[in-house]
């Protein structure tokens, strides 16, 4: 019998699958479990004119905005939660360099549901009077064909490539999620079903036997996955549920460096463009920090 194909590749090879101008969805939610190693590699390779479509975004968009990688962002939120506004995103939008298409939060999820269902739009009845419609020609008003009531057709998310960061996958691309997951992980599952080019970065590549023992938790089976990359601490400085916490010291450093494009240059040199690869990045973060943010998950 022929052996199943391995989809394991390097981060560099995976980023090659995202050319300039790609319509890209990045997994995680707000400041949680963002595929940050992938984002840093996109910047290292100098991607341009990306459109990022999401539900709620933070450091992913902000860092890509700082590096000039973005043309458009379609989401409900770009901010750093307790650290306030995303400074680079804000500056790029205020300078007219970055276009934002605003969507409500649940509607953002509905747009991925539309893509999952193979639909080009999702019907939304509650957008009347909201400027989300005023500034978005892609949202079309239509009468409900059953009742005649006023409805809005909101375009499907329709990403060309989806990138999520998971705890574990095998080399065939079976992706396992913890049973006690939360909204950010469930959002990743939805995104992974909304697109045919799914790239998974994983904390750990596990043997196929591990996958078989956790079959019920394999929400993303191998045939949905195009590439898997082993990237320990791949969401750093954002957290991975049950594995490590947000690196608060690093986030504070990020924010402190974000006062201006100039002041951020040092951060970018040190942590993004300077490191030869992700492991060089982890060396610069240091074993002590990485050990300190490890999470002791429930033993039950």
């Amino acid at each position, binding site marked *: 019998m022929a052996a199943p194909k391995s989809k394991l590749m390097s981060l560099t090879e995976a980023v090659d699958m995202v050319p300039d101008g790609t319509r890209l969805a990045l997994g995680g939610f707000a400041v949680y479990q963002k595929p940050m190693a992938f984002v840093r590699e996109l910047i290292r390779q100098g991607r341009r004119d990306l459109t990022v479509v999401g539900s709620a975004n933070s450091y992913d968009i902000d860092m890509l905005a700082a590096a000039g990688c973005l043309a458009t962002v379609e989401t409900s939120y770009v901010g750093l939660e307790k650290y306030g506004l995303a400074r680079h995103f804000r500056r790029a939008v205020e300078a007219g360099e970055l276009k934002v298409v605003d969507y409500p939060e*649940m509607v953002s999820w509905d747009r991925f549901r539309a893509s999952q269902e193979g639909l080009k739009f999702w019907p939304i009845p509650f957008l009347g009077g909201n400027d989300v419609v005023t500034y978005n020609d892609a949202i079309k008003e239509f009468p409900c064909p059953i009742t005649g009531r006023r409805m809005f057709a909101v375009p499907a998310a329709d990403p060309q490539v989806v990138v999520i960061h998971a705890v574990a996958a095998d080399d065939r691309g079976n992706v396992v999620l913890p049973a006690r997951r939360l909204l950010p992980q469930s959002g990743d599952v939805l995104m992974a079903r909304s697109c045919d080019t799914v790239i998974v970065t994983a904390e750990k590549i596990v043997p196929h036997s591990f996958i078989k023992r956790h079959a019920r938790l394999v929400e993303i089976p191998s045939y949905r996955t195009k590439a898997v990359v082993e990237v320990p601490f791949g969401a750093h400085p954002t957290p991975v549920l049950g594995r490590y916490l947000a690196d608060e010291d690093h986030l504070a450093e990020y924010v402190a460096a974000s006062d201006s494009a100039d002041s951020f240059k040092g951060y970018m040199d040190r942590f993004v463009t300077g490191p030869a690869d992700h492991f060089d990045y982890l060396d610069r973060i240091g074993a002590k920090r990485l050990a300190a943010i490890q999470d002791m998950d429930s033993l039950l």
Partner: protein
Amino acid sequence: MSAAPATLYETMAACLARDFADGEVGFTGLLTGQAAAIYGTSIPIVAMELARRQHAPNLTLLLAGCYHNPDFSALETMPDSEHDATLRDLPAEAQTYDYPGQWALKRGDISFGFSSAVQVDRQGNINSVCIGPHDRPKVRLVGPILQPEHMTLFRREYIMMPHHERRNFVEKVDYVSGVGYPGGLEGRKELGLDWGGPAWVITPKCIFDFDRERGFMKVRSIHPGVTAEDLQGATGFDLGDLSGVPTTEALSAEELRIIREEIDPRQMLLKH
């Protein structure tokens, strides 16, 4: 129990608690930052817990929109992350981990929620998207987040404003990310909005409610120590004649006792 007089935050919580009905479902986010967290999270939690211990034992509290009636006594400090293991492992009646989840949002399961904004206007529209033109804003803010849903799918909304200045209370918001009452209730109906809209706006100076038929905000009560002149001076639209407006109702001794002894004995939510 501390003999310290009731704080304004405790007073606001008691006012809110009296406005909740038994059996309702209240949705609160987990906000961070001193003033934002107090207005957006701590006061709503204390208010709902107070209502549950008095007239509304069947009220459901949704913390961070996910955690149904969590056991706050099991927390050492208020967490500042919505989606991490601290809240996941907190005992609760139900835990939402997916969308759509337990609550049928679009059928109107959520009775009320709380939102804050950078701008609110006389019609009750709110804005958290931008100041200035949308394509070239003076200030780009975070985005609409869940405001469009809060202001239409929830049965009513309490707008919690930690700052009350002319730049926050404007004649017309620069961007409508949550719809108030343009054209009053009839106007909302024409926009296809079946229910919902802002009920109150709570600020450090006063509580507003709405003439929903005619579609504008009016002062419901002024907090102790705030003059009508102060209030008008800090508001960017005309509040009309304020001479008949009452002072914000004080808490009863029993309400204060429940807050300090039962709900928040460690002052994890509201300090006094």
